[in-house]
């Protein structure tokens, strides 16, 4: 079946335990019921406010933290049921570039060992073949083969980020999660790395979950975009539709806040007013207090707005909006 999605997430809930103020431990729901599919060869971008649950979603999907509820299926395999050896083998297919490169790279290993580790672990290559593969990867991300002898702390922030990208690509994954993976790169290096990812997508159907704050970059690489707010997806649409006809007030606020690209066009940027609060249980729309939709009213506060379809593939969770509304 070719139209079966490669990745399918349904009703995912993830909770974190943390030191609370009044109780010794408090539970915070970071992901509160997230559903999405990613087709083979597709790039789905996940965007949204800092702290809304993007990294948590990705970590749960890769089985790096436990999900509390929901389903996660990869190419017909129930990811939540995997244990031990089967989980280890699954990891070859699914790779992640972490948001914080420094803390994710072993400080005692050389760049060469870090990038080449997956090749050995998964029995893909060893010896000279592994060395050659590492050299190629380093050059593809704009580093040089001679950097293999260096240690992570001897690199710049963007160089470390590229080591993490090279490591993820080394095992030739089918599915790649990029969590803010190009944010520490200058725009020319960034363009080079994005071109590499796009090339892999075209050449061998690499599937990506692309988490990023830079919406211009998202627009360049994503086929579809999911917008998260406080643990939930509030809008999901093909990239074009999302940028041209944003339906959810949060998506619109976000697009209006993108910085200008010319100093002569400076303007006061839209600020979201009001404290978003920390993700928790609330009735009604989580965005209500900061929403600037002219029609917002008490109805918004009585129930969680469902994610409904506005047009083919275009979903939004706002009871006051529809796709015909003029974009602001």
């Amino acid at each position, binding site marked *: 079946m070719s139209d079966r999605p490669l990745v399918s997430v349904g009703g995912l809930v993830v909770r*974190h335990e*943390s*030191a*609370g*103020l009044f109780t010794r431990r408090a539970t915070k729901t970071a992901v509160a019921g997230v559903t999405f599919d990613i087709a083979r060869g597709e790039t789905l971008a996940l*965007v*949204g*406010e*800092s*702290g809304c649950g993007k*990294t948590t979603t990705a970590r749960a999907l890769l089985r790096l933290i436990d999900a509390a509820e929901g389903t996660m299926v990869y190419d017909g395999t129930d990811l939540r049921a995997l244990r031990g050896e089967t989980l280890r083998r699954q990891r070859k297919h699914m790779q992640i570039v972490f*948001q*914080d*490169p*420094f*803390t994710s790279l072993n400080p005692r290993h050389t760049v060469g060992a870090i990038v080449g580790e997956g090749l050995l672990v998964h029995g893909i290559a060893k010896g000279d073949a592994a060395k050659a593969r590492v050299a190629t990867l380093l050059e593809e991300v*704009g580093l040089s083969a001679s950097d293999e*002898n260096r240690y992570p*702390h*001897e690199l*710049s*922030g963007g*160089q470390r980020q*590229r080591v993490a990208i090279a490591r993820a690509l080394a095992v030739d994954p089918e599915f790649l999660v990029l969590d*803010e993976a190009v*944010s*520490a*790169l*200058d*725009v*020319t*290096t*960034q*363009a080079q790395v994005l071109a590499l990812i796009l090339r892999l997508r075209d050449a061998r159907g690499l599937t990506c979950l692309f988490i990023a*704050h*830079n*919406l*211009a*970059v998202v627009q*360049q690489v994503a086929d579809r975009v999911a917008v998260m707010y406080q643990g939930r997806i509030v809008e999901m649409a093909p990239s074009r539709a999302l*940028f*041209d*006809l944003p339906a959810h007030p949060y998506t619109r606020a*976000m*697009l209006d*806040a*993108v*910085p*200008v*690209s010319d*100093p*002569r066009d*400076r303007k006061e*940027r*839209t*600020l*979201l007013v009001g*404290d978003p*609060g*920390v993700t928790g249980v609330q009735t009604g729309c989580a965005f209500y207090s900061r929403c600037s939709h002219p029609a917002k009213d008490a109805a918004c506060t009585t129930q969680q707005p469902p994610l409904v379809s506005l047009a083919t593939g275009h979903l939004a969770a706002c009871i006051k909006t529809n796709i015909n509304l003029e974009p602001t």
Partner: protein
Amino acid sequence: MTPLLDVSNLRVAYGDRSGKRVAVDSASFTVEPGEIVALVGESGSGKTATALAIMGLLANNARVGPGSAIRFEDRDLLTLPERELRDLRGRRISMVFQEPAAALNPVMRVGEQVAEVALVHGERDKKKAREQAIAMLGRVGLPDPAEQYRAYPHELSGGMRQRVMLAIALLLKPSLVIADEPTSALDVTVQAQVLKLLLELQRESGTAVLLITHDLGVVAETCSRALVMKNGQLVEQATVDALFHAPQHEYTRELLAAMPKLKRRA
């Protein structure tokens, strides 16, 4: 007017097993009081090394070249005794580190790390330090700051950690903040809030900012001047308007051409 910061002929070299690597090569620039200056350029070109040299926080394997000078508020930072430098750091000059996850203390509550800056620089009243810290965490856009005060760094998202880092650097409203990629983990609405805060501090307290960033939109939006670095050298220094409309150096033109721009239906 004497500049707030005057860096002249700065040279930084790192030594490692493969020999010597020149990270910064005769870089000269100034930052005026209250000015917001961008430092942009290639990954690995020496931006962080420049910042660390100013802060006196270079790694042990780094050497600052003999002809280098860094004057800040009429003191020579390169010859200042460590004790005096420590007194300046956090109070007169502070830094937002590029990788907050690595810069924050993993076993200390984030709020306490912010409050500590006040305590180290003379605040005796712990409660006041705490209140100051919570207020600043709120200003940098951390939701529910009184609650998040107690969180440990690993319990926060990447962008939340970045805001903690910002709160630490801005707490005492120093005259110079060196911000190394301070908004790279922030979504655009929180980013707008943080940049607005920098502009407010500039107005309120005359704070100057050396803003290291890869986001040229942030430069276009916030900075008055920009320095462009490549291979350890400053290849162009210009007003932001000139930089975007009449770039002189080939590399600056390349950067501008590669800048991703959001396309929206008019």
